[in-house]
């Protein structure tokens, strides 16, 4: 994932001190900032209404927040916690992705079946692209040439050429796609389908399906296994997939597509973020209103951190330097 690779590059240059995990609380209109070492909430910051997607600029000087019910993307100074300004975002922005040019923000407008492209410097809308119903998942290829929007009710991944800002391919996925990521240096696109209960792996070059990952947990009805957010380790070998109301995170071998383990976390696990050295993974648990901290090497939940109501997105911020 883009922000992680960037984070790694940055870490290599400047060793981190007390890094942070930022979590948006959808039903509290706040962000909980978790100290990645002490695993305590150190700050709670006010945002607009219904904050969901969250991502940092490449130098971490700004944080972008989808304030869905305020119909705005907010730009915050992560040091002071102050909102600097709003970006025009189209209606009901849910999730977004920052282009490798560190300028263009691709925003899914859930209520409008549109992907909006905003220039974060001029603060202008550059393009609006018609996509399927309830766009949500947003991904950008590491070379910046392709952006993918997934639409929840249309059940498709829409492949957008970022030079022309037009769709060049549409691929069907299982019901209710939620999250998309380019992985393995952009060679593959992964898309989770919440109601379908699968993750589809596409070959980026041909936009054809390579594999479909399925999940089964003993004692949990298959209908309740609903994949949403996921992250891969930087070596591209292991994936962690949040399974929503199944209250588990699946650990998937990203080369064989086999599920190796299921880790019990909080209720309705949604999105996740690694810390700087990828030793810990933080998952947002919407219904239990907390964050589970997973030890990546031991594949074990080590702590639960109470945050606000309905934590949704998570993003890593290095603070060292």
């Amino acid at each position, binding site marked *: 994932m883009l922000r992680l690779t960037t984070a790694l590059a940055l870490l290599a240059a400047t060793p981190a001190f007390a890094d942070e995990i930022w979590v948006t609380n959808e039903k509290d209109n706040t962000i909980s900032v978790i100290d990645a070492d002490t695993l305590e909430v150190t700050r709670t910051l006010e945002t607009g209404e219904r904050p969901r997607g969250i991502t940092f600029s490449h130098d971490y000087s700004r944080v972008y927040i989808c304030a869905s019910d305020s119909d705005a993307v907010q730009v915050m100074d992560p040091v002071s916690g102050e909102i600097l300004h709003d970006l025009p975002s189209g209606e009901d922005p849910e999730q977004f992705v920052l282009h490798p040019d560190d300028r263009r923000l691709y925003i899914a407008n*859930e*209520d409008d*079946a549109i992907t909006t492209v905003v220039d974060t410097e001029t603060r202008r809308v550059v393009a609006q692209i*018609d996509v*399927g*119903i*309830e766009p949500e998942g947003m991904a950008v290829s590491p070379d910046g040439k392709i952006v993918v929007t997934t*639409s*929840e*009710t*249309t*059940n*498709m991944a*829409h492949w957008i050429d970022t030079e022309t800002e*037009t*769709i*060049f*391919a*549409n*691929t*069907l996925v299982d*019901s*209710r796609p939620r999250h998309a990521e380019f992985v393995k240096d952009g060679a593959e696109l992964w898309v989770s389908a*919440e*109601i*379908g*209960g699968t993750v589809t792996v596409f070959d980026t070059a*041909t*936009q*054809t*399906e390579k594999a479909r990952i399925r999940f089964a947990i003993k004692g949990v*009805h298959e*209908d*309740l296994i609903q994949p949403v957010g996921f992250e891969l380790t930087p070596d591209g070998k292991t994936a962690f997939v949040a399974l929503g*109301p199944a209250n588990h995170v699946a650990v998937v071998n990203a080369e064989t597509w086999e599920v190796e383990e299921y880790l019990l976390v909080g209720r309705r696990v949604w999105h996740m973020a690694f810390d700087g050295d990828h030793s810990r993974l933080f998952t947002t648990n919407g219904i239990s209103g907390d964050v589970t901290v997973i030890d990546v090497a031991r594949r074990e939940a080590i702590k639960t951190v109470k945050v606000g109501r309905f934590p949704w997105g998570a993003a890593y911020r290095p603070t060292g330097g």
Partner: protein
Amino acid sequence: MRVIGLAAALSLTLGAAAASETKVRIGYIGVEQPAPPVLSNLDPVPDDRALAGARLGLADNQTTGKFMGQEWVLSETLVPEGGDALAAARAALAATRVLVLDAPAETLTAIADLPEAEGALLFNATAPDAALRDGACRANLFHTLPSDAMRADALAQFLVQRRWTDVALISGAHPRDHAFAEALKASIAKFRLTLTGEKEWVFDADMRRNASAEVPLFTQQLGEHDVLLVADEIGDFGRYVVYNTWLPRPVAGSEELVPQAWSPVVEQWGAAQLQSRFEDQAHRDMTPEDYAAWAAIRTLGEAVTRTGSDDIAVLRDYILSDAFELAGFKGRPLSFRPWNGQLRQPIPIVTDRAVVATAPLEGFFHQGNELDTLGRDAPETTCRAFQE
């Protein structure tokens, strides 16, 4: 037989401008039914009930269809009271093999039995009658509205979970009230609750003025119970029972705590998006009938997209198969019961202000699909038409 966009759909990759164009026409027939008189004027029945849901389903299919080379058309026919519903159905079936119907049970079976309807796909979006899913079922008639039995079972599961096991029942005199009361009594037996007393609502006075005087005495004779069930499906008297009972007891059934296919208070699982799309389009709240009509048209959208076909036999097979699943904003994939064509679905149990629970509730197990703990299950069904 016309097969549309098949090559494209099979490869699962479609260019921005899909090459092949498919036009899918759906007929909608709304048969106007006289609204029974009720005491209160508080709840007007919208003129476009069910129809507005069908229109939203069509808009959803169109948005998806434009990426798939599909064009969706809805032909709306409204039959006035006393009009010829069968003639309207014949005319519609001359133009399309797919109908979404808002009609009473006897009209539905009459339409399904038309020679022109043989091999067609009909969706019942508004009739909850048990018989349509049982002895009076038809192989070409699917049901997206839950049956009375599904709703009653949902409520019974909630009562069991709360351990409110002793229930009393008041039923209205309208045939719809009787049908729901029968469903409630069947659920009471199925989930081993106890019916402590039962009365029919007989008042012909205007309860807006004297409910506080009459209802306590009326309910005094119902014996000791944990919860009072009211079967008042036409919305006549139930509202005057609440807070006027002899014993301080919660009211459930058609009033106060109500099992519903859909309600404006449903907002989880992305439902808020469906609600707001509907409200933007129809400028009112989405009813269970709107939801059922929406689900019928989305079912067709899913089936055409996934099979790449508009052949009715192909679509019917797919819809009844294990592969079919509809994302219906209720937290689980929806599918059809192969024994009677009923859409499996969770049933929210709601007040005017919130979802109190959603059935199937935890602890009600089923060897196949937990959704089949609601309504007539395969071993009990008397529907044979789907086995042929």
